[in-house]
């Protein structure tokens, strides 16, 4: 299943000009407020018409082609949409909300089972409730279920967590992780919150002022120096690494992980062997050495090569530089001083040893792809 998009749209002073495609998994449309993310998903859903021309196709089925005068209305697109505010029907109870779109998907042989969706989202207890009494998190889960039961070919999610507090977000994220693993459904996930994106996305489309600044696998873009903004919400530059639990070392309380960059040991994690995780390694938690470090307390020393040096930070006063490290396909980001770069003669192509001081688990890939796939998508 693939979604191809090329759109131009103008709204007052704002101009959107975006082209990208996404396959299975979660594609995050990431950018700050006003970057055109919601306009873009509204255009994909057919809630707005592109006034500057464009084309949208799913698996070759053309939904919009302004040159051919083609515009498929929203209800014939089979594109699900989970809105920021849920938009549950207030006059229907939860069950009827969930079943609303099922009428139109009845003839489809691949129709997803009602019980499966209920189970996946944990909303079995809510079925007979009215929507007014639901919490924000419950509403969003019902909205996701409603969209899924209409059996879309693509699911759009427009900041489904933005209206929720941190606790409610944590309540929903595991459900989204499970959805990604269990449904072979391409999801376009709009967000301006990087932690969410790093946790969920397989691919990333970085939107800036209506234009696509970068698009590609998340693990690749996260390790590109200077690309993802350090936002005020505690995000720092750093890479995402897919990992699989190999085993536990009970004596020392450590968990051994396999990653495409090499074996990694971390303090004990409560996940069974075979579990797939996402690791987050901040750029400032990596120290570089030119040769194999001898006696060091660092557990994780990964041999790799410098792939690129961040262009920014070359002026006086900018002490730090971000480097992209390559580990046979997997990439990490390291932050070192400019002084060290010059002293050690660090340049693209130089072999280095990366000593990783801290590893955080960013999320869990239920099912998911095998870890040997370095790009994660």
């Amino acid at each position, binding site marked *: 299943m693939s979604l191809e998009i090329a759109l131009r749209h103008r709204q007052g002073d704002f101009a959107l000009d975006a082209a990208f495609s996404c396959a299975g998994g979660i594609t995050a449309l990431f950018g700050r407020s006003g970057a055109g993310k919601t306009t873009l998903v509204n255009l994909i*859903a*057919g*809630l707005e018409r592109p006034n500057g021309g464009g084309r949208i196709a799913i698996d070759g089925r053309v939904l919009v082609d302004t040159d051919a005068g083609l515009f498929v*209305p*929203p*209800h*014939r*697109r*089979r*594109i*699900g*949409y989970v*809105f920021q*505010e849920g*938009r*549950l*029907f*207030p*006059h*229907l109870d939860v069950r009827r909300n969930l079943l*609303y*779109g099922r*009428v*139109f*998907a009845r003839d489809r042989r691949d129709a997803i089972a009602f019980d499966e969706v209920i189970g996946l989202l944990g909303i079995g207890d809510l079925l007979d409730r*009215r*929507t*007014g009494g639901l919490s924000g998190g419950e509403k969003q889960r019902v909205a996701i279920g*409603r*969209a899924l039961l*209409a059996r879309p070919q693509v699911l759009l999610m427009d900041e489904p967590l933005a209206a929720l507090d941190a606790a409610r977000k944590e309540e929903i994220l595991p459900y989204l992780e499970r959805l990604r693993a269990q449904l072979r459904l391409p999801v376009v996930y709009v967000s301006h919150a990087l932690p969410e994106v790093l946790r969920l996305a397989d691919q990333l489309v970085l939107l800036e002022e209506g234009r696509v600044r970068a698009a590609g696998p998340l693990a690749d873009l996260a390790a590109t120096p200077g690309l993802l903004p350090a936002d005020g919400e505690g995000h720092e530059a750093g890479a995402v690494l897919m990992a699989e639990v190999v085993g536990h070392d009970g004596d020392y309380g450590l968990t051994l992980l396999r990653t495409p960059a090499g074996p990694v040991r971390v303090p004990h994690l409560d996940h069974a062997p075979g579990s797939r995780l996402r690791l987050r390694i901040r750029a400032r938690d990596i120290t570089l050495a030119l040769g194999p470090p001898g006696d060091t307390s660092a557990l994780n020393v990964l041999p790799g090569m410098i792939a690129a040096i961040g262009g920014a930070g070359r002026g006086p006063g900018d002490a730090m530089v971000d480097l992209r490290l390559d580990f046979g396909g997997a990439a990490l980001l390291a932050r070192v001083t400019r002084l060290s770069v010059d002293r050690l003669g660090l340049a693209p192509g130089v072999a280095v040893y990366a000593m990783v001081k801290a590893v955080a688990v960013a999320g869990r890939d239920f099912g998911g792809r095998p870890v040997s796939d370095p790009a994660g998508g």
Partner: protein
Amino acid sequence: MFVLTPEEITAILLSLKVAAVAMAASLPFGIAVAWLLARRDFPGKALVDALVHMPLILPPVVTGYALLLLFGRRGLLGGWLGDQLGIVLAFRWTGAALACAVMGFPLLVRAIRLSIEAIDPRLEAAAGTLGAAPAFVFLTVTLPLMLPGILAGMVLSFARAFGEFGATITFVSNIPGETQTLPTAIYVFTQVPGGDAQALRLTLVAVAIAAAALIGSEILARRVGRQVRG
């Protein structure tokens, strides 16, 4: 004193019939016009809006006379309706219903229009993304959410029709058994010597019917309101 004469019963039943028919017949038009005014922009919208509200502002006698000019036997439309379709409204109870419907129409449209404007169009957009065609969205989302407004409009329209006097008496006169409604009957009784008792009896009946209608609609409105609020 509380034994109603056959003449009085006829007037009461006729009033109820005229008001009910006026309300029911104008409802689909009321919903359509309210929806057009609330959701669509079209040339002449201000004119339609003004025309709908006209009976609210004009003296009822003027409205009744206008109806007579339009729908009388030799009226602009009345002649054609009578010759081609055999529909005669002048001096018939159907004419009374038309007069009542016209008088109640602005109230009907206003109430429904307000309820449409209160509906979040994003809910309808959401229904569209779930696969529902626009007509289905209207029937399953818009219409149910309009229900409180429709109900309020029906009550207002019925009440207006039940009490209508000026336009009715001008358009269809005051023929016992055909066009003599409760208000016109009361009026007649107050004009004849010794009619006071009859006028009072009918007045009390009018109060009772109005109170019953109000209470009934209030109960219904509460139930519907609970349904819609979610």
